[in-house]
């Protein structure tokens, strides 16, 4: 005989060999099973990629435009903002933040409420004193100015008003706005500023009330020289916000200052995002269910078709548990191959959508943020969640056919044609 070919060494090797050969023997069924898994994986991956891309985009836009990633305030300011709760040692705090790893940019702000008047029209305004150069770097302040120009980098009694506020006050670039308020020392604060620009932040409330002044003008108006209410920090990677927050806290070592990440600063926004993301989990379950049903159907058919073979295997002494593992092995091998192909497709789809995106027919608003295009994100989550889902659903649904095959009565099975 031609006995030169090496024979498998162990029973598990032989079981694996039978599993592999069965997979290739029933090509059409294998392709159908694999197709259900591959399509399921790719769909799930794309769903996660688009979802993460959308949420990532919204969060990035929200934090970049408004809150920043981390904020520093005087203790209690976030719960109850007050003109008097200021960060006093600004230069030392600024230096500590600057020296923290992963800090990309930071800026300081002064906030105050007042009455704004242009001509004969008046309304309540939110004065935001900004460090122009830093604000541009941190929150792309220059991009918000849609008409006119940005504030000068040196305090020049200039103002940029929100689009909505300009409409309420019938203000135009070149108009003068008079602001009445109260200084931190109790004095009446009032001054005149030339409107040099109209801004649109994407947040309607800010645009209806926001009046941006140079920080030094605002400090002068509120008698807050050398002080600010808020320091906004931008980190190089939003996923490291918690770590950077802790590091800033440690670097400042000042118990009178609160250092908070954006999830704390914008609690309601963060909760809304989380709830929305949980809603997305339902669509993932639906996809998983479709994959599972497809796999169950094909595996069950495959087992039924081979009832006679399982009967023979049992008749010659194969234990029920070994037949059980044979069926599981076949499904797991198909699942592993499907995961590899699905991962390639998922990465490709997410990559393409991360570049070209999906443009909405009309701009949509989420949490005051306006979105025109939805971009996907290529990340690890969009690979490991579908991988676990496909593998688990395949393994779980193959349990029933595997048990069925293992419990076959050989005599009855061998009568099957």
């Amino acid at each position, binding site marked *: *005989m*031609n*006995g030169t*070919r090496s*024979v*498998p*060494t*162990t*029973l598990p090797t*032989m079981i694996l*060999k*039978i599993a592999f*050969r*069965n997979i290739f*023997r029933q090509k059409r069924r294998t392709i159908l099973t694999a197709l259900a898994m591959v399509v399921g994986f790719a769909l799930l991956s794309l769903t996660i990629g688009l979802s993460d891309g959308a949420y990532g985009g919204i969060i990035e836009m929200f934090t970049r435009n408004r809150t920043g990633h981390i904020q520093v305030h005087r203790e209690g300011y976030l719960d109850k903002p007050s003109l008097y709760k200021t960060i006093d040692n600004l230069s030392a705090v600024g230096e500590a933040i600057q020296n923290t790893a992963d800090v990309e940019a930071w800026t300081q702000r002064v906030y105050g409420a007042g009455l704004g008047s242009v001509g004969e029209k008046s309304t309540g305004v939110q004065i935001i004193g900004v460090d122009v150069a830093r604000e541009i770097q941190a929150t792309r302040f220059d991009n918000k100015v849609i008409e006119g120009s940005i504030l000068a980098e040196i305090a020049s009694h200039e103002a940029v008003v929100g689009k909505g506020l300009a409409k309420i006050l019938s203000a135009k670039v070149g108009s003068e706005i008079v602001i009445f308020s109260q200084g931190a020392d109790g004095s009446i604060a009032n001054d005149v500023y030339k409107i040099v620009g109209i801004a649109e932040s994407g947040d309607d409330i800010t645009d209806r009330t926001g009046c941006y002044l140079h920080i030094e003008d605002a400090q002068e108006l509120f008698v807050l020289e050398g002080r600010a209410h808020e320091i906004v920090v931008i980190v190089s990677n939003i996923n490291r916000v918690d770590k950077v927050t802790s590091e800033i806290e440690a670097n400042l070592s000042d118990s009178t200052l609160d250092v908070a990440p954006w999830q704390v600063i914008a609690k309601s926004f963060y909760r809304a995002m989380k709830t929305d993301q949980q809603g997305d989990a339902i669509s993932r379950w639906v996809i998983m269910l479709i994959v599972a049903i497809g796999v169950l159907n094909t595996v069950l058919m495959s087992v039924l078709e081979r009832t*006679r*073979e399982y009967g*023979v*295997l*049992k*008749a*010659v*002494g*194969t*234990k*029920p*548990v*070994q037949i059980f593992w044979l069926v599981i092995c076949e499904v797991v091998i198909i699942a592993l191959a499907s995961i590899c192909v699905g991962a390639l497709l998922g990465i490709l789809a997410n990559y393409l959508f991360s570049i070209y995106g999906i443009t909405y027919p009309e701009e949509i608003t989420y949490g005051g943020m306006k979105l025109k295009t939805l971009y996907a994100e290529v990340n690890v989550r969009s690979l490991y969640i579908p991988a676990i889902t496909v593998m688990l659903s395949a393994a779980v649904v193959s349990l029933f056919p595997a048990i069925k095959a293992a419990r076959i*009565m*050989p*005599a*009855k099975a*061998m009568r099957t044609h």
Partner: protein
Amino acid sequence: MEQVQKADVIVTAGVTKVYEADGVPVNALNGIDLTIRSGEFTAIVGPSGSGKTTFLNIISGLDSPTAGSVRLAGKVLSEMSGNELSDFRRDNIGFVFQAYNLIPVLTVEENVEYIMLLAGVPKAERHDRVIAMLEAVGLEGVADRTPTQLSGGQQQRVAIARAMVSEPQIILADEPTANLDSKTGADLLVMMRRLNTETGMTFIFSTHDPMVMEGATRLITLRDGRIDTDERR
């Protein structure tokens, strides 16, 4: 000359099997009491539906009786778990089926080797025994072929090699020559008789084939699930 007393390898007592066919009970076996001794070359004959295959299935533990007991190589089959029964079949019984029933995805060599793998026989020994067994059944040149690449006679030879390679006490063969031409059937019968004589294995056939009946040392006739005649030659 002193007569050597051979051991009883199969003892059945009151073996009964009732099937449900469309809700109607059908008595396939009606209380069969039978003892088969070691080394016998037994043919079980009878018309279709007389219970031959059912009887073989029950004495090998492939099926369970509705009533009665089977003692095989000293063990009562009904007292064994599924796993114990698998091990017991693997170690004590070799099967040859009418439809060959080889594992289609394995080669001839792997089909014969498979049972030894289940039994944990070391690789080198497996290899030697596979070679010897395939030589014994005249299949030296087809070790790498799959069952679909073989003729019916060759497939049945592989089945015989698979049944005998682990040197079981008993070979059960259900209509082993039914799908073969008369010459191939005769060759196989001669080969099995030789193996029976050389190794002392017990062979039990169910058959309609007069040639098999002729070669048997014991002929049991079943009719309506009962033993009609039992003749030793």
